[in-house]
């Protein structure tokens, strides 16, 4: 009997469940531990969104939906902001889902090709570059939609919970956090795909 298992790893139920759990934990740890003190409201921004965009770009929409939502919700729970947990669950989940649906598999596959190609053929390089611009635009769209979902929904739920004024005050901080999240997530996806190519087979 001969078998090549590499095609069905990422579809095995055990693999799916574990990858979602590990990325949930990664999202929670990025949210809880890594804080950059620049945003005005909470005094810092966290890197939870970096993990969410990374998950969306590498593991796809379904994983990002669950681990993005659950990871930030657990982080809220553990840092004493339990009232935010259900809201984060929904908002960050949708953010990851949208980003993953927009980029689809091609982004991560492309990043791997880009790395492997050797610069010999000028026409080929041009083609890669052209494709690269298109992929860049697609991922920018993903970042933009993700940001709009996150900032918009936080504003709406904030307005419902404690009024329009304070909710509006949080918007700039959330935008910064989300943009940092997108840029960081994109850079990390590139870095991880290059340093660990098997990642590019995991998108589902």
């Amino acid at each position, binding site marked *: 009997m001969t078998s090549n298992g590499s095609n069905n790893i990422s579809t095995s139920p055990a693999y799916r469940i574990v990858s979602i759990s590990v990325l949930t934990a990664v999202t929670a740890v990025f949210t809880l531990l*890594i804080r950059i003190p620049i945003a005005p409201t909470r005094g810092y921004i966290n890197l939870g969104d*970096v993990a969410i965009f990374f998950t969306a770009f590498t593991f796809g929409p379904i994983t990002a939906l669950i681990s993005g939502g659950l990871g930030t919700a657990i982080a809220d729970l*553990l840092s004493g902001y339990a009232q935010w*947990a259900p809201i984060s669950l929904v908002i960050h989940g949708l953010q990851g889902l949208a980003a993953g649906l927009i980029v689809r598999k091609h982004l991560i596959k492309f990043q791997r090709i880009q790395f492997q190609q050797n610069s010999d053929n000028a026409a080929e390089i041009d083609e890669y570059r052209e494709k690269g611009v298109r992929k860049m635009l697609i991922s920018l769209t993903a970042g933009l939609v993700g940001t709009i979902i996150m900032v918009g929904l936080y504003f709406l739920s904030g307005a419902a919970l404690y*009024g329009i004024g*304070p909710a509006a005050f949080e918007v700039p901080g959330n935008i910064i956090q989300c943009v940092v999240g997108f840029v960081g997530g994109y850079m990390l996806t590139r870095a*991880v795909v290059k*340093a660990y190519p098997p990642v590019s087979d995991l998108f589902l």
Partner: protein
Amino acid sequence: MIESSYHEGDSFVHAFDPRAKLLLLITGITTLFLPFGVEFSAAYTGVFILLAIPAAGFRHAFSPFKLLLPLIILIILLTPPFFKEGEVLITYRNWILLTEAGLMRTIVLIIRFTGITYAFFLFFTSTPLNQVVLTLRWYGLPLNAALIVSMSFRFIPYITTTYHHVSDAHKLRGSYQTGMWGWSHIRGLLPVLTSVLIKSVKTIPVMAMSLESRGFGSNRKRTSYQRLRGGRILFTHFIFSVMISLIIIALPYVVA
């Protein structure tokens, strides 16, 4: 570093069945959004805060305020400017700073958010996390979702440790400094996060092997060992919480 919000205790809040408690949490929060008037919101919020004293102990009972304070200040500063109608209370030159409507709204918002915060605080301070998961299972959360929650809690300390080791390793390699927060630090963070992610992604297949070898994924029906207590206690607690729910919703109408 990471501590659960649960506080061990033997108060009646702890003893109350978590499924009934969740029901009360939901009605409690819903009531805060219903247009009953500020007296009732204040009364209910007051009850939540009072219940926090036996549930969390006197020292911890007021800790949510520490996290609430910045937001309360924001509400005080940013709500009144949106209201120009009603009797004017404070002016500065030609500017209307505070009207009666604005004041009322500010008070309502503060009370509502405090109430919501305490309702959640009460639930999670008196319910251990595995019971929270079992409660959600009882309300229909799929097994796989419950499994993901439990495994995430196992992986969080693991990934935290990995993160600390990785940042130590990068520090000693000269590629990462702590203490200073600037562009160089943020740039140095990228290698650290890359290593953490590679390490995490690489452990997934091995952990998946473990899960598979524990019989996960076969079509045999799983049984479950951990279970919330059922029987008469559950029944009484449920009746009790339904009654309280009805009372807190009906009370404003009765009084009116």
